[in-house]
């Protein structure tokens, strides 16, 4: 399993800090997988 660890909490860090994370996440489209598996409809959204 791939994983990315970064430090947050400071303003004005390096510009491309989240680029790798966004690329990793968008490269595996789980919702597409769920649709392909004919997975059940999404459970009701939980509120924070």
């Amino acid at each position, binding site marked *: *399993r*791939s*994983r*990315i*660890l*970064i*430090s*947050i*909490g*400071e*303003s*004005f860090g390096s510009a491309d800090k989240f680029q790798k*994370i966004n690329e*990793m*996440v968008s490269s*595996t489209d*789980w919702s597409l997988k769920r649709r392909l598996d004919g997975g059940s409809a999404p459970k009701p*959204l939980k*509120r*924070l």
Partner: protein
Amino acid sequence: RFPALQREVSELTEAEEKLDELINKCSLQLRLLTEDTHNKKLGYVRCQDLRNTVNPPDQIIMVIRAPPETQMQVSEPSEGYQISLKSSKGPIDVFLCPED
């Protein structure tokens, strides 16, 4: 070719040192700017600002305000994605931007 190359390398050395100096100056200016009390108070955005920056606008927008050096780990478990946040310098604030 040799003396010409020597001249080029020394000019590049000067240019790099000048850039280092400007980067240090700019980093200091930015830190002083963001730490200034007046600017700190006025350094905010509204939920509507955030909604205007995502496409499509009717998404879930989660805002995370964390103390410095908070560790964020994004891992790809078997199904979906997992994000863990761990702070050693105080509580982390997470909230959802209201849709309206």
